[in-house]
C-alpha cells in the first residue's frame, strides 16, 4: 500500500482551527486561558443541513458547558474521504457520523480507532449497537411510506410489491442496505430470521416490480419523488418520511411496521488529532437530554435507553427506538455487513442498472 497518498491536500483543519479559535475566544477570556488550552478541540463531522443547528444545540453547547470544545463540520464523512485522510496521515476529523457500512469498509482497512469503552459508557447504549470500531449515536429506520391520495387503506410491505392491488410507481434507495432486508420481509421472512440475508431471494423479489421502481440517492431526492406524486409508495428513512408527512398535511403517511431499525454510528478515524478527547466528547453526547433535543429537531431516535422515557408523549410515535415501534421492526446485523457489504452493494448496483 502506498505510504502517502497525498492526492488530496486537506486544509480544512487549518480553516477550522481559525474558526474555532474565533468562537472560543470569549470562552478563553471567561474561563482562563490555561484551562481552555488544556482540552483539545474535537471536530465532529455530519452531513450538514438542518443537522448543523440541531447538533449544535443538542451536543456542542452541553459539551462546552462541561469545558470541552466541539466544532461541527457539515461536509459529509464518506468512507473514501475518511480513508484518504487516514492514509495520507493528515487526519482533520475526530468524530464522524457514519453507519454500519463504514464499519464494513474501513474497519478491516484499519482506518478506525477502537472505541474506548472505559470513557464511553456501554450502559448508556443498547449493547447490540456498541461495536468495536463504532458506537451508536442515534437510531433511524428504513420504513414504508405511501401517498394517501392514491393508496386509501394502510398498505403492508407485501403490498409494496403488489402492482395489481396498488398500481403505480415505487421508490427504493440506491443502496442495498435496508432495501434487501425489506424485500425479504415482504417475501415472508420473519423479522428475527433475516440474517444471513438471502440476497438472491431479495433480488428476485425486487425483480417482480423492477419496471416500476425509481431509485433515490439523497434523502432530499426521496422527499421530492414522494412529494411530487411521482411514486405511490416508497421505502425511505423515517426522518424524511416524517418531514414529508408534516409538509404535505398527512398526504404522505408512513409506518414503522416491518421497518428496519438501524444505528447511526460515531466512528473515530485512526490517529485523530484530538486523541482520547474524542471519546470524552462521545461520552458527553450520550446524555439523554441532548438526544431528546435531536429527536425533537430532526426525528433521530435517542440511542440511550434512558432517554426513551424522557421523550414527550407527542413525539413517541415518531421515535423509531420507542419500545412500541422497535417491537414491530427488524434490527440490522452489522456482522453480516462487515462480511458482505462491498460485494452486495456492487451486485445491487449491477442488478438495478441491468
Amino acid at each position, binding site marked *: 500500500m502506498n505510504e502517502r497518498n497525498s492526492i488530496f491536500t486537506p486544509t480544512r483543519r487549518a480553516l477550522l482551527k481559525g474558526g474555532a479559535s474565533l468562537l472560543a475566544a470569549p470562552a478563553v477570556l471567561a474561563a482562563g486561558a490555561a484551562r481552555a488550552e488544556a482540552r483539545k478541540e474535537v471536530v465532529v463531522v455530519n452531513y450538514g443541513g438542518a443537522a448543523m443547528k440541531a447538533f449544535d444545540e443538542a451536543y456542542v453547547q452541553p459539551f462546552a458547558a462541561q469545558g470541552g470544545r466541539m466544532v461541527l463540520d457539515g461536509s459529509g464523512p464518506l468512507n473514501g474521504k475518511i480513508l484518504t485522510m487516514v492514509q495520507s496521515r493528515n487526519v482533520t476529523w475526530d468524530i464522524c457520523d457514519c453507519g454500519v457500512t463504514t464499519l464494513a469498509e474501513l474497519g478491516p482497512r484499519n482506518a478506525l480507532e477502537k472505541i474506548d469503552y472505559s470513557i464511553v459508557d456501554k450502559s448508556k447504549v443498547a449493547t447490540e449497537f456498541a461495536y468495536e470500531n463504532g458506537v451508536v449515536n442515534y437510531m433511524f429506520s428504513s420504513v414504508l411510506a405511501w401517498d394517501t391520495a392514491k393508496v386509501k387503506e394502510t398498505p403492508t410491505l407485501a403490498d409494496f410489491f403488489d402492482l395489481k392491488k396498488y398500481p403505480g410507481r415505487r421508490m427504493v434507495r*440506491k443502496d442495498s442496505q435496508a432495501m434487501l432486508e425489506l424485500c425479504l420481509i415482504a417475501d415472508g421472512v420473519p423479522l428475527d430470521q433475516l440474517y444471513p440475508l438471502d440476497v438472491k431471494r431479495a433480488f428476485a423479489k425486487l425483480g417482480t416490480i423492477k419496471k416500476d421502481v425509481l431509485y433515490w440517492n439523497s434523502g432530499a431526492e426521496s422527499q421530492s419523488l414522494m412529494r411530487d406524486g411521482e411514486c405511490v409508495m416508497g421505502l425511505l428513512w423515517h426522518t424524511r418520511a416524517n418531514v414529508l408527512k408534516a409538509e404535505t398535511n398527512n398526504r404522505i403517511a408512513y409506518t414503522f411496521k416491518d421497518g428496519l431499525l438501524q444505528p447511526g454510528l460515531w466512528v473515530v478515524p485512526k490517529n485523530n488529532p484530538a486523541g482520547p478527547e474524542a471519546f470524552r466528547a462521545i461520552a458527553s453526547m450520550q446524555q439523554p437530554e441532548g438526544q431528546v433535543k435531536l429527536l425533537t429537531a430532526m426525528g433521530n431516535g435517542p440511542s440511550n435507553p434512558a432517554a426513551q422515557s424522557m421523550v414527550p408523549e407527542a413525539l413517541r410515535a415518531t421515535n423509531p427506538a420507542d419500545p412500541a415501534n422497535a417491537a414491530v421492526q427488524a434490527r440490522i446485523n452489522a456482522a453480516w455487513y462487515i462480511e458482505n457489504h462491498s460485494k452486495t452493494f456492487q451486485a445491487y448496483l449491477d442488478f438495478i*442498472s441491468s
Partner: protein
Amino acid sequence: MSSPADQLTPSPSRPGFGVTARYWLLILPALALMIVCYIYPISKVLWLSVTEPRPGLDNYAMLATSASIQRMLATTARISVISTLITLVLAYIVSYALVHTSERVRRWMFLGVLVPLWISVLVRAFAWFVLLRREGLINNILISSGLVDAPLSLIWNETGVLIGMVHYMLPFGILPIYANMRDIDQRCVAAARGLGASRAVAFRQVFLPLSMPGVVGASILVFIFSLGFFVTPAILGGGKTLMIAEYIKVQILEIVRWGVGSMLAGTLLIIIGGLLVALARVVDLRKLFGSI
C-alpha cells in the same frame, strides 16, 4: 507554418543560450505548475490502479472478466454515441442557420446558445426535471391538448438522460461547427449553383464536405465530454443509468475499492488520449481548440 523542430534550433549567433531557449525559460513556471498540480497527481492515480489492493494488473484484468464493468462501459459508450449523434445533427442545423442569417438575428441566436453554457449543469438538470416529470409542463400540455391520455415517461430513464445531456452538449457542438462554417467561402456554393447544381446537390457536394472538419472536431469534443458525464445521468436517470463517472464515484467514496476506481479513470484517460491521437491524424487539433 513552421514546425516545432525549427523553433527548437538554437540561434547560431549566440551558442549555448539561444533566443529560443530564453523563450522556453518563460514557459518554465507554467510547466512546473503543470507537473506539480496536474501530471504528478494523475500519475499517482494511475499508480494506485496497478498497486491497489496488490501490485499487478489485476484491476485492468477486470475489464475482461467483470460482466458488471463491461455492461457499465457498454452503457456509457451507447449513451455517449447516441447523445453525440443527436447533438451533431442539432448543432449542424443551428450552425447552418447562424451562418446564413442576418447579423441581428445571429446575435440573438448566439445569446440563446451561450446563456445555457453559463448556467450550472445542476440547475439545468433540475430544470429538465421540472419540465419532464409526470406532472410537469410538457406532460400537462400533451394531456390537456389530447395528444396522449397517460403521462409519458420522459424522465427517470435513458430518454431523460439523453435529453439532459444533448441540451448540455449543444453549445460544444455548435461553436466548432459554426467556426468552421463561417470560414467556408460562400462563393463556392454560389459557383456550384451557377454551374447548374440544384440547392440540394450544391449543399451535398460542396458545402457539406467543406464543413466536415468542424463536424469531426465537434463530434470528438462532445463525445469526450459525454464519456465523463456525471450530474445529468445521476439526476435524470432514475438511478438506473449507471455510467462510468458514477461507477467510479461509488468505488472511490462508498465501497473504497480505489484500485478499481483508479483503473477505470485510467481507462477513460487512455480512451480519450487514443481518440485525440486518432483525431490529430484527421484534423489540426491546435486549430480546432484554438478556434473555439
